[in-house]
């Protein structure tokens, strides 16, 4: 069976984005899919994250 060098990531929140980046950085084609018109997920709605008080965006 021919292995396909691509991975589908369903969900473009912080989880999907990190997985997509690591996969792409190691040589795989990534399809990053989200049902919303943009990525970011729930984390994009948060104000600041602890402990560094970085803005969630």
């Amino acid at each position, binding site marked *: 069976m021919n*292995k*396909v060098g691509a991975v589908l990531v369903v*969900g473009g929140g912080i*989880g999907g984005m*990190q*997985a997509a980046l690591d996969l792409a950085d*190691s040589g*795989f084609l990534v399809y990053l899919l989200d049902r*919303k018109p943009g990525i970011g997920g729930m984390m994009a709605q948060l104000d600041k994250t602890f402990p560094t008080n970085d803005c969630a965006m």
Partner: protein
Amino acid sequence: MNCDVESVTGGEGDFTVRIRKRPRYIDPAKCTGCAVCFTHCPIETPDAYNLGMDVVPAVSINYQQQVPRIFTIDRDICLGCGLCFEVCEARAVDYLQKEESEDIKVGSIIISAGSELFASDTKSEFGHGRFKNVLSCLEFERMLSASGPYRGLVLRPSDGREPRKLAFIQCVGSRDARAGKDYCSAACCMYAVKEAVIAKEHLHDLQPTIFFMDMRSFGKDFDKYVDRAKEGGVRFVRSRVSNVEENLHTNTLIIKYETEDGAFHTEEFDMVVLSAGLSAPQTAEELSKIFGIELTEFKFAKTKELEPLVTTHPGIYAIGTFQGPKDIPETVTQSSAAASLSSAALAEARGTLITKPVPVEPIDTRGQAPRIGVFICHCGINIAGYVDVAQVEEYVKSLPDVVYTERNLFTCSQDTQEKMKQVIKEKGLNRVVVASCTPRTHEPLFQETCEGAGLNSYLFEMANIRDQCSWVHMTQRKEATEKAKSLVRMAVNKARRLQPLERLRFPVTKKALVIGGGLAGMTAAIGTANQGFDVCLVEREKELGGHLRHIHFTLSGENPQEFLKNLQYQVTQNEKITTLLSSRVKKIDGFVGNYKTTIETPKGDVEFDHGVIIVATGAKEYKPTEYLYGKDPRVLTQSELEQKLANSEKDVTNANTFVMIQCVGSRNDEHPYCCRFCCTQAVKNALEIIKRNPRANIYVLYRDIRTYGMRELAFREAREKGVIFLRYEQEEPPSLEGKNGKLFVSAKDPIIGEKLRIPADYVVLAAATVPYEDSAELARMLKVPLNEDGFYLEAHMKLRPVDFSTDGIFMAGLCHFPKFMEESVIQANAAVARACTILTLEEIEVPGTIAEVNRAKCSACGFCELVCPSAAVKVKEEVDRRGNILRYAEVTAALCKGCGSCAASCRSGAIDIKGFDNSQVMSLIEAF
């Protein structure tokens, strides 16, 4: 984007996925994100992103920074008036856009579909949706956001006044069997404390109170954060609030609560925030059907405890809150882990589908006079709302050497990048200045754009007229505009002095060194080998296994010892893994991609060349000095108890009364942190005792019960089976006395208010997990930092949880912080994924902005070596052919981060940072 998965066929290694692309009614190729349509649309609808606290037109973008910045029309509310079509200068609106389907072929699938916040309005007793001043945690986040509907002002929705007293109610929709959410959502304790702290930053006189049952601050530095919050004025009340009432005239909220001593209190609050739990998304059932994966009883993706992230459908992985409630660091670790797990099976197909960018012919700028192009950004309204950008542009035109200026709505948008490349070529620019936001986030983007036009990326300079100007001078337009002019003038002056810089390239040794052969080490070794790389695994004991050798049971009934044997077999059988037992790392030289390590083995020293290092050295169990441990054989640690239960020792299985004492040696001054797994371990062992002897009396004396996530169900089971949980305060710990050959534990029952004296057959201590003393030695060898508690310090707690700041070194397992077996497995796989981003490179590139030594000026004083945090500069000694001893500082380019500490410390002016040298930095000050 705007897509759903319709169907999945095929199997692991070769899936065909049908994607349904829903129409935006806007052409993504044409849309520039200018927002003109947004400002003209006549319709208003509640903004889902702001949870209905604001309105948004029919054509919109979720939030200003959305990627991709392409607008979408919500057909359900669009009138079809045609206004957006008329005003769009890019002609991007297309009402006739249709839904499309596309089939894609992939080898693996990772599902990160997220979760939904529990609908706290379904618990009507809290008044969410009825009482104006009761908000959910996410609504409160939107209120706190500077870009949110309240612009970051904390105000009561009912009357717009500043609240004084704010209450947080924990566990809304968690630890709640009646609501069908028996589990703990794992993140709410911490996010509530965070919201309380941030709210107090916004409003100094605010008095936040958090009503909780157990404070589940079990993560790295979490307890410290909570303690700081307490010191900062956040009040914690241990009580489960059952309902909230409202004063109809003032819209103030009334909470009646009972404290542990049985007293009832009534208190008024101006606002209440409900810490809602994390529930599986409503689409979970649908996703389960489409992907053919099973769900748990709570509709999260079902995965196995010791094979985490793997769903019931081979080739499909589930991560993040879709897999179960968790916080951001756990999710990020799981994401990286899934990247390596999902790609292991596809390792042979690596690189087959990616396209390499075509290198651009570089422009030779030598000998040219500076020709500076300045791009000034409006940043939507972020800059233009507070600075007169047109005036700034007029001024900049007058500066010498500036041959081109341009204003952009969003200089960072994709179409502007294309335009910039064209302009660079057409106008023959050899310096580019962008006046916009922060180089921290955007410098790499613009540098890439310059490279794309053939211009050396170091001929680029940024002026931050957003964070350093418009954002901090919002009420002083005239002054802000003058300051923006100054900032651009400074950047232009420096740009004149910029020189093209080389990025050095080094080859990468495609091998990995894994230090430590416990659960994390073995998992990392296997993972890296599965990706196709050779591994050397070094373990100082004579067998593999580490702490895993002492674990015999799990809550889900899996067999850790079988699992251990399986791992040991996999490691020893794998041709790509060289295992060195009874061995220690002696010396490590080199830098990322090019390490040379000497390992001391029983057969002599072994040299190993490798590109990356994964540190998995574990941690040890604290040997208690408290509670007669070591003096009385009936006082055990939890691991010792577990061993005896596994051996079916009659003394233990026949014993009548067990008293378990939690937090022994932890959450104190010596080890001010939580050891994360001990509460669950106590519950697990209690249940194991009951299996063997249903009539055993078990008391668990605790400070907080931290059985987070699904482990909460085991806590409930233990209580149902008669285990008695008694809380104690840090200031009043239980005491143990041996009298007449018997053991008696004295502890105060907080509910009765009386001291109990429990005769115990066995006293079981939850001994802390502490770092090995020699982790400091390894840290020195690796040149990596430890945190205050002696555990390895990661690059960023949330976003880079397995990376060290030093490139090429990663960590996993207990050496990072105490954690569960499944968490070690996940972290180890994450370290593999991160390591592979280096191992898969052909060459490693070092930025050009690094230190450089002028040997003629160097006095070899060694100060630079002393202050360098990356150990990148060392004083070298050599003898020339005349026998003279020459001493000078030398920089190892690959290690240098360009921080400038050396340049600041050098008394001779011999060392300087390329791209930020003295004359360049002085030019900024001269121009100011």
